[in-house]
């Protein structure tokens, strides 16, 4: 029995729940959509969502109602909603479950959002590797169309909403909202410069909202149970529940839905069953690969946007990666950097060039060829990337590096001094570039 009341994962936790339209409706699905279409104005819904305190679950935690309110009301042309289902952040796999196991929950949320912002067209941009998810969504959409839950004149309200699935092609950067827009437009997925922001010039230069899967999935519940109920869960400015993906050296990795604000200690030692082999904890990443690393001394920090930020990291995508004592931090940082180097879109100089150099230096330290001054060089390189790039990828890629140096400098120094990795003495790695 889970310790906390499930909201988003509730349906799928029922034995035999199939996620079909019928099953979802039996569980009360699409009542929220009917209600808003019949009884509420778009402005009303935006107000309600603002009151609920819902913040984006994709990474940045931007207040959802506020984001919607930037969409120009008197816009003549089309407006769009793009659901971000690109979930590519290493260590994060919650959207995948929300899609595969209960697709109508997010579809209902998507329709509610479309109505609220006046968009008649929605795209779900799904990560290319999610074959099953795409298939499930396609089927769910067909079911919903047949039941006239999408298409024209929903519930006789005169409101039209069309939705389709757009599959990614394997680039992490397409999760960044403007790269995602480029990709839907059929172009190379690379982030746009901002301003203009998508709310004004988004997909095909029209006003566009981009929301994460989990963000949308919360909407039916906010409508059904009210903003006050939602706001009562969690702490401070972090309301509602959050589905955390726990991975790494824990006994029970997996997705766990908990109210915002539980502590990391509870998350790791209680909910995820504790450390694998009961080994001591060395470090953890609280919010996906781009969140700076934290140390055991941070275990009692609550998992909410503000507290984690204050502690120098970020809640990000909710992917918690746990590392035990025998993990080589340099190796871990290098591993993450390999990912970022591979995924840099290559558009802007600091990220394109910097990621390669950072990785090259990490490689040589890990292989025992580190030199004096390499740590400073790494810090220097990161400083030249951070804050100087087109998109937030720049901050993302330096986060793990700078934090690992900050918390584990001695380990880096040991690598260099001893001319070998204390954990992987025989490391041989291929060259970068």
């Amino acid at each position, binding site marked *: 029995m889970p310790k906390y009341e499930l909201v988003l994962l509730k349906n799928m936790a029922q034995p035999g729940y199939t996620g079909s339209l019928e099953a979802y409706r039996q569980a009360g699905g699409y009542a929220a959509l009917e209600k808003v279409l019949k009884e509420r104005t778009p402005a009303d819904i935006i107000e309600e969502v603002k009151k609920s305190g819902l913040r984006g679950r994709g990474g940045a935690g931007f207040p959802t109602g506020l984001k919607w309110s930037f969409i120009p009301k008197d816009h003549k042309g089309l407006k769009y909603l793009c659901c971000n289902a690109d979930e590519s952040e290493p260590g994060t796999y919650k959207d995948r479950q929300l899609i595969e196991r209960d697709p109508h929950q997010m579809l209902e949320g998507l329709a509610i959002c479309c109505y609220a912002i006046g968009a008649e067209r929605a795209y779900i941009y799904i990560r290319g590797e999610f074959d099953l998810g795409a298939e499930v969504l396609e089927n769910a959409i067909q079911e919903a169309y047949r039941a006239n839950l999408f298409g024209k004149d929903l519930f006789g309200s005169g409101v039209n909403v069309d939705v389709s699935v757009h599959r990614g092609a394997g*680039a992490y950067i397409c999760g960044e909202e403007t790269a995602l827009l480029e990709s839907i437009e059929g172009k*190379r997925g*690379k982030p746009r*410069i901002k301003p203009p922001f998508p709310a004004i010039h988004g997909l095909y230069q029209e006003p566009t909202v981009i929301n994460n899967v989990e963000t949308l999935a919360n909407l039916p519940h906010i409508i059904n149970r009210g903003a006050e109920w939602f706001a009562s869960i969690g702490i401070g400015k972090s309301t509602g529940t959050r589905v955390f993906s726990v991975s790494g050296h824990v006994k029970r990795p997996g997705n766990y839905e908990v109210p915002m604000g539980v502590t990391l200690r509870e998350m790791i030692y209680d909910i995820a069953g504790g450390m694998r082999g009961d080994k001591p904890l060395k470090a953890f990443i609280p919010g996906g690969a781009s969140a700076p690393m934290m140390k055991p001394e941070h275990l009692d920090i609550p998992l909410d946007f503000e507290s984690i930020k204050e502690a120098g990291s970020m809640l990000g995508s909710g992917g918690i990666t746990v590392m035990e004592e025998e993990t080589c931090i340099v190796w871990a940082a290098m591993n993450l950097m390999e990912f970022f*180097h*591979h*995924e*840099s*879109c*290559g*558009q*802007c*100089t*600091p990220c*394109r*060039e*910097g*990621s*390669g*150099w950072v990785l*090259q*230096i990490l490689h040589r330290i890990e292989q025992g060829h580190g030199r004096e001054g390499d740590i400073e*060089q790494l810090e220097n*390189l990161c*400083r*030249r990337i951070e*804050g*100087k*790039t*087109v998109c937030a990828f720049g901050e993302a890629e330096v986060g793990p590096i700078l934090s690992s140096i900050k918390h584990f400098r001695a380990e880096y120094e040991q690598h260099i001094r001893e001319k070998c990795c204390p954990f992987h003495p025989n490391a041989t790695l291929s*060259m*970068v*570039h």
Partner: protein
Amino acid sequence: MSSRITLKINDQEVTVEKGTRVIEAAKLAGAEIAHFCYHPKLKPDANCRMCLVEIEKMPKLQTSCSTEVSEGMVVQTASEKVLDAQKGVMAFLLGNHPLDCPECDQGGECQLQDFAHQYGAMTSPFGETKRTFEKTYFGPLIEKEMNRCVSCLRCVRYCDEVIGSNALGSMNRGSMHEVGAFAQQELDCEFCGGCIQICPVGALTSRVSMFDYRTWQLKKTETVCNYCGDGCTLTLETVDEDIKRVSSETGVGRNGGDLCARGFFGYGAVNHESRLTRPRIRLNNNDLEVTWEWAYQTVTDGLKAAIQTHGPKAVGGIISAQCTNEEIYLFQKLMRESVGTPHIDSGARFGYINAIAALTDVFGTARLSRYEDISEADCLLVFAGDMTETNPITALKVKDAIRNHKTKLFTVAPYHRKRETYISHLPHLATQHTEISMGSENAAILGFTKAILEGTPSPHTPSDLFEKIKFAVNGISFDQIESATGVSEQAFKDIGAGFANAERGLIIVGRSILRGIEGYQSMLRLAELSILSGQVGRPGTGILALAKESNAFGAVEMGGTPEFLPGFQSLKKEERGYTALEMIDAAARGEIKALYLVGENPLRSLPQKRVAEALKQLDFLICQDLYPTETTALAHVVLPGASYAEKSGRFTNHEGETQKIREAIDPLGNAKPDWQIFSTLINKMKTTEKVPYQKLLGYASVDAVWKEAVMAMPQGWPVLLGSKMQESLAAYAARANVTWLAPEPFVKNGAFDLQVGQSLFHSGKMSTYATGLTTLQDKMMVLMHPEDAERLEIEEEELVQISVEGSDAVIELPVKYSKKLSEGTLFISEHFALEIKKMLPFTTDSTTGVPYGDRGRVSLAKVRVST
């Protein structure tokens, strides 16, 4: 609301237009900000991150190239934070760079080199393992050295945003990012060279001029291109007397710094080894190289002899419309005054005269529309489906209008909409394209006229003209028009209404009309169409006729045709001399005995047999040219003229814009600027004494000639469409003879309709001397639709035989597929072989005598390979 914004940059106040970007404002404030991806022609992309600045109230540094100024903004461009960030970016850019400046063609004018010096040492700061790419090539003309690339995407963005060719793109990610031809195919773009020019470093360079120079050796001369009537300003860059390359400056000239392949890669024709460089005379059947003194004497002796024996009218002259205004003026002066003959014609006869004569007839001037009008128009009606090929930069203006000014484009041409290479195809970009049967342009004009007449004709149409048009159209049905053009009544009505009801509508016509059958009448009918639509006499309206030659407009204005004295003074019928072809025929009859050809080769441009027969009858043939031709081989005197790069003067482009050309190098060998040759001859014709020719030049400079030419124009210069338009229109309305004949139905009989036309990569014969251009195209191919080819089982590159009904001549050519051609049509570009022209039916315009021989019905068959 004020559109001016005041901000502070490095404590200095500046006021700039709203919408200005910080980098531009800083420049005005005297603070140059280092940059790579920024370019005034391109939309901001802010990818290089070099131009970061500090802006008060913004926590992060901002890219000054993408940030617009706002009121009260406070900017620091050189604070410690900024310099540190810029140093960081610079270090990143140099990190993977090969630092091979000494062997890079960009060395000396490289932004990376310049800014690196500004920010410290040129070394690679991080590690030893640099990323490396193999050197490759973008097609035959462009070298790609990606190790030098800074990934600023200026090349890609220029190709997309300016040229609209979309041939380039980004490949790979992260530090392996490189630019490449889209889909990694062989590049088949417009080869405008823009990517080479806009690349801030040496990553893209021209293969034509590789390792030929160091940039600081180059002398630069700004002049005007001579390959078409667009009138593009370009810079010839020379070392001693050799043109090494061409460049153009952003924003400069009618072209705003954009060029086409001919302008950018076509300079090699000037220094070509086959140029004529010494005067030659034919003496006792021998060719003798002689001094200019001797050559001049021979010319004047020959001309005087002809005048004495047969009278002045036994002399004729034809001059190329690629000569300057001054030269054409002097040549007609030599003919009309010194010799006393009315027989003077020019290259404008090959079509452009149809436009000038018709437009001046109706409006009193041919200066109706300029490039600015293309941008200002809401709607363009274009009878030039091949505009990218014939007039690439005017086509660029059209593309710019539809992209950036929301202008509607209606194209009318015997092409499909389809574009298949990265060469822009206007029908492909059109709001609506009307595909007509080949040769039915005239019937299409009729269709639009009828549609607008029955729709909402302009109330300002002079009533007598309106009645005449109505009467002429009366009795011709849309069914008849449809059977000729293949276009429905509805389409004519839709487009006709779209054009006539536009706020500002502009017509553009190209060679399909000017060199189509009865082009003069077609131009009159188009002029009437523009009046009927109310689309003339205001900004963004009128008619722009596209010129093939760089000075076709000027050739007529300077008096280089029999019907006009300088300044478009129209001569009465009986005062007019012969047109080019009439001179040839008069020579055949023995009426013309001496002919002076300047840059004209009638054996190529007119029916060859007829010309050959005629030339044989002449007593005296003078050829002044750049290269040896079929005709110079027959001449009694050959004078080496100077190309546009070796002389000064003026060209008037097809907008009627007169621009200076400037001498970049000395004339090759003993060649002379043509204007000097003419003015010496004018003076020599006057005197019987022996005076050294150097003393006979007469004019101090081309400017003195120009002054005299302008003085010779009684209406003043230039004549613009102004208050006189109404007067002129009224007179035209009163005398107009509007006739429309029911169009002949277009019957397909299984044969092919062949069109001979221009290639984007060539202009006449001259361009075929430029290796840059022959690399792109050096042979004649016949284009056909792949479906036709499939039906006849013809593979690409396979040889086919083409023959014309009623003639047993056959030519063999390789086939190239083209999906833009309509099925049942063929296209051959004209630059390489004469044979095809010899086979096609030949007619002339009943009013202007313009020769027509570009189209015909042919049959096509596989070449049977005997085994």
